[in-house]
């Protein structure tokens, strides 16, 4: 007596047929130009551009995280002015599209091409011209990381707030300074809450690097693919090549992310009483090699 799922099988067969049809059709469409896809997939120019995309991602994320940490701490500061400055930063950078921000950073050298020394609207003593023009790669990293910082700030803030207030108090009572408390006690514990969404941010950043075209920086994966297609008039295969590379990177990151989340959602059964009463509170990864 075996289960039979006639309805389920019908749906499955229809879906499989549709997928097969789609794939066969796609294989036949000349516009996809599969031989070209194969040809350019491992083209050296593309793989070098992929490297630059990775560099953009890594640099922007690192700076974004550091700035985000600073902004998060500012947001939690008791000083209302510091708090407000951080709030305004987040408001502006989260409230405007990153594409527009990148266009803006591309034009920044136009706006700030000189340092004006003087009393605004009253008197100008001297105008020093800024001659240094930052490379586009640099501008791209600045644009991406300043935007990212606004998002990381919220993530870090949530992480810091997730650490039980008693921890900070205990450290204070031992005579630890605010900096020591942060560095040794609060930040290590907040990592559990901070790391998983940060993984998401890395994936998202990898994809956001396509927007450096707005700067305009064009040595990244997508920019390079576009350049090649401008010469060869085959935009679609190169678009596919770029997509495959992005898909490859994001897939690796997603797998990493999966394991990270698994690792960081794991807890040890018995916690402190305070924690036991409140399963919402962070479960600390203990045991050998906890979050250190």
């Amino acid at each position, binding site marked *: 007596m075996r289960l039979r799922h006639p309805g389920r099988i019908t749906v499955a067969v229809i879906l499989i047929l549709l997928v097969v049809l789609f794939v066969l059709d796609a294989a036949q469409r000349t*516009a996809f130009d599969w031989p070209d896809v194969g040809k350019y997939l491992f083209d050296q120019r593309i793989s070098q551009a992929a490297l630059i995309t990775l560099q953009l991602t890594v640099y922007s994320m690192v700076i974004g995280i550091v700035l985000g940490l600073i902004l998060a701490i500012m947001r939690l500061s008791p000083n209302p002015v510091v708090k407000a400055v951080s709030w305004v930063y987040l408001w502006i950078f989260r409230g405007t599209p990153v594409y527009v921000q990148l266009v803006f950073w*591309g034009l920044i050298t136009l706006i700030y091409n000189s340092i004006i020394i003087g009393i605004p609207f009253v008197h100008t003593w001297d105008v020093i011209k800024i001659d240094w023009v930052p490379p586009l790669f640099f501008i791209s990293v600045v644009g991406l990381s300043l935007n990212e910082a606004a998002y990381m700030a919220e993530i870090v803030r949530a992480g810091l707030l997730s650490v039980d207030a008693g921890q900070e108090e205990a450290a204070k009572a031992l005579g630890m300074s605010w900096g020591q408390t942060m560095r040794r006690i609060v930040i290590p514990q907040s990592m559990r809450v901070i790391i998983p969404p940060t993984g998401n941010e890395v994936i998202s950043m990898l994809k956001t690097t396509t927007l450096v075209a707005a700067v*305009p920086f*064009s040595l990244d994966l997508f920019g390079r693919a*576009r350049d090649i297609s*401008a010469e060869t*008039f085959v*935009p*679609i295969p190169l678009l596919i090549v770029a997509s495959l590379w992005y898909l490859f990177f994001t897939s690796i990151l997603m797998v990493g992310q999966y394991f990270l989340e698994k690792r960081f959602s794991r807890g040890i059964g018995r916690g402190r009483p305070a924690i036991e009463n409140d399963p919402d509170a962070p479960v600390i990864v203990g045991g050998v090699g906890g979050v250190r």
Partner: protein
Amino acid sequence: GCVDNSGGGSGGSGGDTGQKNAYGVTKDAALAKTLPGDIAKAGKLTIGIDATYAPNEYKDSDGKVIGWDVDLADAIAAKLGVTTDYTISKFDNIIPSITGGRYDLGVSSFTDTTEREKQVDFVNYYSAGVLWASAKGKNVDPDNACGLKVAVEAGTYEDTEEVPAKSKKCTDAGKAAIQVLKFDGQDQATNALVLGQVDAMSADSPITEYAISKQKDKIQAAGTTFDVAPYGFAVDKGSKLTDVIKNALQALIDDGTYTKILQKWGVDDGAVTAADVNAASKQ
């Protein structure tokens, strides 16, 4: 049509039999008969255009596509008794869209090159060169621009051939390469120069001249026009439409409309005397 969506909208002239085009062009029945059947039936030419190339093709303040390229294409359509249907596209995607059968015609100041002729046929209608511009009072020599920043529009002849060749000369001579800033549209490239983000820009001579005329106090020509080459309307390789367009253009040259249009836009420097096809490979 694409009036509602593309930000361009149809130039929408030519039009019905008997109606006069803005330049007084009327339908030539004999020419109209030679139109490929599907176009005659549709009654319109589907045209791909990247409207960021003033004064050749750009948008007015209402977002309508204008320019002398547009006027010329409209006149050709009027001669053939059909309308024009402009679709805004990115410059790099127009030729693939013609070979892909999406557009009948590419009207976007294409420089006729042998490389491009492998993809499409060109009906040559103008003779343009490349002209650089630099900031006012700052002299830039296009032949010795090593290490400078030069703005171009992505995918143009300047982007894919002219500036890279100059840059290669620099690096071959052991000097710094030219830093090319590729913008999505010519408008951004021009802005970059006007605002001083780059040392120079490289574009087709009508474009550079137009920009200079608009921004006399900010930018100036750098050197003179060089690399003179024909412009062409792009048509799918081997299409019957090629000769039809060529004949219509010739008719416009013959009846003086062609000159009228070019003069109106102040670009009659590069006027041709006869319509040609695939001039680049003939040289």
